[in-house]
C-alpha cells in the first residue's frame, strides 16, 4: 500500500516535472538564448491551457465549449491561438530593454488572467472549466508517456535551434547587440521570432497542464505558479543550457515537494499557514542560489574563443 501510494505520487510528480520542463525550455529560448526578460509566462501558460480546455470539452451553458475535439487538435489549437497573441505582445514590447520588458510582460500576464476571470461567457470566470479529459483514456502513467514524448520533441527542437545559425544569432544578440547589428542581422526580427517561439512552447506546456489536471481556473495562473517557479527552475538549472533547464525543473519540483513534507513537520502554530511557509522556503532558496551560484547547476557551455584550445 505504501509502495503503491509512493508510485502513484511519483507518476503525478513526474508529469508535473515534464510539463514545467517544457515551459522552462520555452523560457530558455527567450531568456537563456536571447536575453529577453519575460516574466509574463503565466499569461501564455493560461492561453494554452484555456484554449485546449475550450476546444476539447463537451457542451455547456456556462462557457464557450462543446467542440469535443480530440486531444492533439486541442494542443495544436493552444499553440495556434498563442501565436498571434505572442506576436502582438512581441511587437509592442520589441524596443523595450530588460526592466521595461519585465514590467510590460508581467502586466500583460495579469491582464490575460483578469480577462479569463471576468469574461465568464468564455471561461466560466472564477469557477473555471472542469472535465478536461486525458487523451486515449489513459491514466497518470499513460499520460506520463505522452508528456515525456512532448518533452523529448521540444528538447530536440530547441537544441537543434540552439545549434543552428539562427540560435547563434540569438546568442550573439544576447551577448553583444550592437556588434550583431553591425554584422547585418535584423535584430528586431530575430528577437520577435525567439519571443514568439518561446511563448508558443509555454502555451504547449499550458495545454498539457490542462489535460493533466483536468480543470483550469484563473487561480492556477497567478504569478507564483505560472511564472516564478519556472524562473527558479531555469536559473537554478543554468540558463542558456537546455539540459540545465530540464534538470532545474526536476530539482525545483523535488524541493517544492519536500517543502510540503518539511512544512508538515513544523507545527502549524509556529508557521501559521503551510502554503505560505512553502513559498517562504522556496523564496529563501532562490535567494541563496542567486547569491552563491548565479550561473546555475549546469552552466552554459560557451564555444571557445578564436585561438583558444578546447580543454
Amino acid at each position: 500500500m505504501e509502495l503503491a501510494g509512493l508510485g502513484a505520487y511519483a507518476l503525478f510528480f513526474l508529469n508535473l516535472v515534464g510539463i514545467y520542463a517544457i515551459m522552462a525550455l520555452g523560457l530558455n529560448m527567450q531568456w537563456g538564448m536571447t536575453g529577453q526578460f519575460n516574466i509574463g509566462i503565466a499569461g501564455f501558460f493560461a492561453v494554452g491551457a484555456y484554449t485546449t480546455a475550450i476546444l476539447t470539452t463537451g457542451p455547456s451553458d456556462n462557457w464557450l465549449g462543446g467542440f469535443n475535439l480530440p486531444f492533439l487538435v486541442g494542443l495544436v489549437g493552444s499553440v495556434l491561438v498563442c501565436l498571434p497573441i505572442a506576436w502582438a505582445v512581441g511587437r509592442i514590447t520589441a524596443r523595450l530593454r530588460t526592466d521595461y520588458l519585465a514590467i510590460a510582460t508581467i502586466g500583460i500576464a495579469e491582464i490575460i488572467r483578469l480577462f479569463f476571470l471576468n469574461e465568464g461567457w468564455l471561461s466560466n470566470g472564477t469557477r473555471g472549466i472542469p472535465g478536461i479529459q486525458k487523451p486515449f483514456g489513459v491514466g497518470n502513467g499513460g499520460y506520463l508517456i505522452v508528456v515525456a514524448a512532448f518533452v523529448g520533441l521540444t528538447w530536440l527542437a530547441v537544441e537543434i535551434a540552439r545549434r543552428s545559425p539562427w540560435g547563434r544569432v540569438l546568442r550573439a544578440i544576447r551577448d553583444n547587440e550592437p556588434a550583431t547589428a553591425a554584422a547585418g542581422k535584423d535584430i528586431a526580427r530575430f528577437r520577435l521570432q525567439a519571443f514568439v517561439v518561446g511563448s508558443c512552447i509555454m502555451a504547449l506546456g499550458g495545454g498539457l497542464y490542462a489535460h493533466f489536471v483536468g480543470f483550469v481556473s484563473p487561480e492556477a495562473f497567478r504569478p507564483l505558479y505560472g511564472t516564478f517557479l519556472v524562473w527558479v527552475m531555469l536559473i537554478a538549472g543554468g540558463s542558456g543550457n537546455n539540459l540545465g533547464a530540464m534538470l532545474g525543473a526536476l530539482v525545483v519540483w523535488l524541493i517544492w515537494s519536500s517543502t510540503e513534507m518539511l512544512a508538515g513537520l513544523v507545527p502549524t502554530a509556529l508557521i501559521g499557514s503551510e502554503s505560505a511557509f512553502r513559498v517562504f522556503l522556496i523564496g529563501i532558496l532562490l535567494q541563496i542560489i542567486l547569491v552563491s551560484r548565479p550561473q546555475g547547476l549546469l552552466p552554459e557551455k560557451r564555444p571557445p574563443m578564436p585561438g583558444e584550445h578546447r580543454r
Partner: protein
Amino acid sequence: MIEFIQLLINGILLGSILALGAVGATMIFGVLRFAHFAHGDLMAIGAYFALTVVTVFNLPVLAALPVAMLLTAGLAVGIDQVVYRRIRRVQPVILLIASFATALVLRSFIQMVWGSSNQVYQTGIQLPWRIGPLTLKPDHLLIFIAATVLVIGVHLFLTRTKMGKAMRAMSDNMNLALVTGIPADRVIMWTWVIGGALAAAAGVFLGMDTRLHPVMGWTLLLPIFAATILGGIGRPYGAILGGLVIGCAMELSTLIIPGSYKPAVAFAIMVVTLIFRPQGIIKGSV
C-alpha cells in the same frame, strides 16, 4: 457630473497612495538601476507593522505611522545588505529576480505572522461627511494631508540636504557622480531608507482607506510601476504626477468599463507611454 467629481476625489486619494509608492520605486530605479519588484510587498508589511503597533499599544493609526515607517526602512536596508548588495555587480537582471523572490518571501511572511484574512485598523463604521451630494470620509482628508506633508518632506530632503543632492546626482549620471567622490554606499543606504519609509506610509494609508490583506501591495505594484514609467524613471516629481494621473485614470475608467479591469487601465497607459514617450512625461534618466 456628481459621479465624476466623486470618482475624481477617489482618484486623487488612490493617486496620492500610488505617488508615495512610486517616489520610492523611482529613486531605487534611478540609483540602483533595477525595478524593485518587492516594493508593493514592502508597502504591505509596513501596513502590518502599523497594525501590530495599533493593536498592541492601542494607539491611533497616525501615531503608529512613524514606527511603521522606521521599521520598514530598517527592513529595506537589511534586505539590501543581506541580499541585493552581494549581487549588485553580477547582472542587473539577477537583482530583478532576487527582488521578485524577496516579494514572495515578504508576502508569505505576512501570511505566516498575521494570517491571510482581511483585517482593519479600526472596527466600526466611520461616519462620512456629506458635502451636498458628495461623500468624504474623515480618513480620506487625513490621508491626503499626511501624503502631502510627506511629499513636501521628500522635496526638502532632495533639494536642501547634501545627501538628497548626492542622490539626485547619482540618479542623473552615475559615473560623473562617482568620480566627484560621492559615497555611493551611503547614498544607496539612504535611498532604501527613504524608499522603505515612503512605502510603509503608502501601505498604512491604503490600509486605512480599504483594509489590510497580504496581497494588498502586490496588486498595487503594477500601477506603481506605471506611475514610475509615466513620470520618467529616476524622477521623484514625475512619479508624484504619474501617481496622480494613474490613480485618477483608474477611478474614472469605471465610468466606461467594468471596475474589475481597473488594473488593466494603469497598464494600458504604461504601454502607450512606453511606445510613444519612453522617457516619460518628465524626461527620465535611464
